[in-house]
C-alpha cells in the first residue's frame, strides 16, 4: 500500500500529493498529547461527519438496497430483473438501430466519444502551439465545459432539429435527405447525434489538460530531436505522446466517468424516457426513472439501487485502472 501511494505520488509528479512522512516530524512540535488530539478532532471531524453521513452511508445503503426486497429479505432478484430487462440489454435490437439497452448505449458512448474527444483535443493542443491567438481558440472550445450540461442538452436539441437546426440544414444542402430531419426524433440517429454532439461539449477538457501538459515538456527535447533530423511523426510517437502519458491517463479516466454518468444532456435533448422507444436511453436516466417509480412502488428502489451499483462498479473499474497504470509507471 505504501509503495502504491508513493507510486501514485511519483507518477502525478507531485512532491506533495499523498506525501508520507513529512507530518511526523511536525507533530513533534505540537503541545501536550491531549491538546493535540483535541485539535485534530476539531480539524477533521466536521468533514468526516458530513462525508460519512451524506456520502459513505448512502453508498453502503444503496449497495444494501440492491440486495434486498422491500420487506428486507436478501435476494438477487433485483439484479436478475434489471439485467434481463430489455431496457438494460436488448439483444433483439442488435446490431442496429437502437434501442440496444442502456448498458450498450453507455458502452457505445465510450467507444465513440472517448477516442474522438481525446485525440481531437490532443491534435488541437499540438497545432495551437504554433497559432497566433491560441488562447482565444482555446477559450472558444472550452466553452462547452463551462456550459451547464442541461443547457448543453438544449443546445444539442436545437442543433439537430429540422427547421432551426444547423445539422439537418447542412445535410439538406448536401443532398442527403435521410439526415436532413430532426436527428433526435429518430431511432437511427438519436443516440449517435447525442454522442457526436457531446464531443462538442467535452473536447475542451482534453485540449486544456494536454495544453498544460505540453508546457511541461522541455523545449530542448524537441530541439535536440530536430537537430538529429527526427521526422515529426516519430518525434510525436517517441517523445511527445509518451511524455504526455499522465495527462492521457487522467483524460481517459475523467472522460470515462463523465460518459458513464451522462444524464442532463439526454434529459434535456430528448426526454426522461430516453427518446423514441428509449433509443437514446442511458444508465443514469434508467436509474432516475426507477427512483421516481420507487415513491409509489418500493420494489423500484431496489432496481434503482442495482443500476446505481452497476454504474459505480463500472466507474470504480475505470478509476482503479488509472491508479494501477500510474503505480506501474512509478
Amino acid at each position: 500500500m505504501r509503495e502504491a501511494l508513493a507510486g501514485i505520488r511519483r507518477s502525478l509528479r507531485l512532491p506533495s500529493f499523498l506525501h508520507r512522512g513529512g507530518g511526523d516530524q511536525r507533530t513533534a512540535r505540537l503541545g501536550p498529547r491531549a491538546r493535540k488530539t483535541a485539535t485534530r478532532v476539531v480539524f477533521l471531524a466536521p468533514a468526516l461527519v458530513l462525508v460519512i453521513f451524506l456520502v459513505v452511508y448512502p453508498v453502503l445503503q444503496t449497495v444494501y438496497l440492491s440486495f434486498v426486497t422491500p420487506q428486507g429479505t436478501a435476494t438477487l432478484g433485483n439484479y436478475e430483473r434489471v439485467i434481463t430487462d430489455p431496457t438494460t440489454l436488448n439483444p433483439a435490437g442488435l446490431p442496429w438501430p437502437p434501442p440496444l439497452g442502456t448498458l450498450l448505449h453507455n458502452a457505445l458512448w465510450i467507444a465513440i466519444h472517448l477516442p474522438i474527444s481525446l485525440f481531437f483535443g490532443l491534435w488541437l493542443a499540438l497545432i495551437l502551439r504554433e497559432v497566433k491567438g491560441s488562447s482565444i481558440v482555446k477559450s472558444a472550445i472550452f466553452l462547452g465545459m463551462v456550459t451547464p450540461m442541461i443547457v448543453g442538452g438544449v443546445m444539442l436539441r436545437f442543433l439537430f432539429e429540422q427547421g432551426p437546426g444547423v445539422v439537418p440544414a447542412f445535410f439538406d444542402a448536401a443532398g442527403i435527405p435521410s439526415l436532413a430531419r430532426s436527428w433526435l426524433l429518430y431511432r437511427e440517429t438519436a443516440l449517435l447525434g447525442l454522442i457526436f454532439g457531446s464531443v462538442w461539449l467535452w473536447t475542451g477538457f482534453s485540449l486544456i489538460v494536454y495544453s498544460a501538459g505540453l508546457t511541461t515538456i522541455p523545449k530542448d527535447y524537441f530541439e535536440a530531436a530536430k537537430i538529429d533530423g527526427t521526422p515529426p511523426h516519430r518525434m510525436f510517437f517517441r517523445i511527445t505522446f509518451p511524455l504526455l502519458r499522465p495527462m492521457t491517463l487522467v483524460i481517459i479516466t475523467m472522460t470515462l466517468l463523465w460518459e458513464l454518468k451522462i444524464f442532463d444532456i439526454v434529459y434535456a435533448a430528448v426526454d426522461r424516457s430516453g427518446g423514441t422507444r428509449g433509443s437514446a436511453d442511458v444508465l443514469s436516466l434508467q436509474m432516475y426513472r426507477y427512483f421516481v417509480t420507487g415513491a409509489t412502488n418500493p420494489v423500484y428502489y431496489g432496481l434503482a439501487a442495482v443500476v446505481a451499483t452497476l454504474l459505480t462498479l463500472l466507474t470504480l473499474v475505470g478509476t482503479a485502472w488509472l491508479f494501477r497504470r500510474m503505480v506501474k509507471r512509478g
Partner: protein
Amino acid sequence: MTKRRKIRMRTIVVHLLAWGVALIWMIPFLGIFSTATRPTSEVAFGWWQLNRYHPTLDNFISALTEPRFSISIGYVNSLIIAVPATLVPIFVASLAGYGFSRFSFPMRDYLFLSIVLLMSVPAQMVAIPVFQIMVNLDLVDNQLSLILLHTAWGLPWIILFMRNFFTALPLEVEEAARVDGASDLKIFFRIVLPMAIPAFASAGILQFMWVWNDFFFALILIYTTDKMPATLLVPKLAAGQQLTDWGLLSAGSILVLIVPLALYVLLQKYYIRGMIGWTIKG
C-alpha cells in the same frame, strides 16, 4: 526558398484549421443567441437567415417573468443554494486538508485515500438514501437539503485540493508562531487561511460552477417550482407546448449559461489552475 515557402504554407494552413475549428465550435452559441434575440417566427427556417431580423428582448423578458417558471426566481434560488454550498465546504475542507497535511495519526493515508476515492462515486449512487435521509429530516423540497448535500459532495475533491496546497506551503512562518506559543487553531486562522486565499478562489469558482450547473441532485430534492434553481427550470421552458418556443428556450438557456460563463471569463486564471490542480496538478 522553397523550404521557407513550405513553412509559410504550413503556418497558414494551421491557422485556418485552428480558427476554423473555433468558429465551428461557436456555431451553437451563435445559434441560440440569434434565436433568443428575435421573434421565434423568424427562425423557423434557420437562425442563420438574417434577411428578416428584428432584434428584441421579449424572449428574455418572458423567460425572466413567466409566472410558472420564472428564471429570475430560479436565479435567486440558485444563489441561495450555491453561495453557502461553496463557502461552507471550502471552510470545512480547509480544516480537514490542513489536518491531513500537518498532523500525523494512525491510518492517516488510508483515510485520505478513501476520501479521495469518493470523488469517483456517481451521484446516482447516493440518490435514494439521501432522499430518504432528507425525508426523515423533513428537508425534502427545502433548499437546505441541497446545500447540505452539495457541501458533503464537494468535500472530497476540495480536501484533496487544499491538502496539496497546504503541503506545498513553507513551514517557517507556522513554526515561528508555534515557538511563540500560538495554538494550532490560532495558527490556522491567523496565518494559514490568509495565505490560502488564491487556493480558495480556485476551489471556490469550481465548486460554485458545479453547484450552479447541477441538475440531478436538485431534480431529486426540490419539487416546488418557486424553490427550484435555474437549471431545473430550463427544461420546463420547453415542456407543455406542441411546438417548442425556441426563442423562450434559448433566452432561458442563455440566462442560465451566462453566470458560469462570466465567472470563467473573469476568473479564468483561477479556474484553469483549479481544474489542472484538481486533475493533474502540474
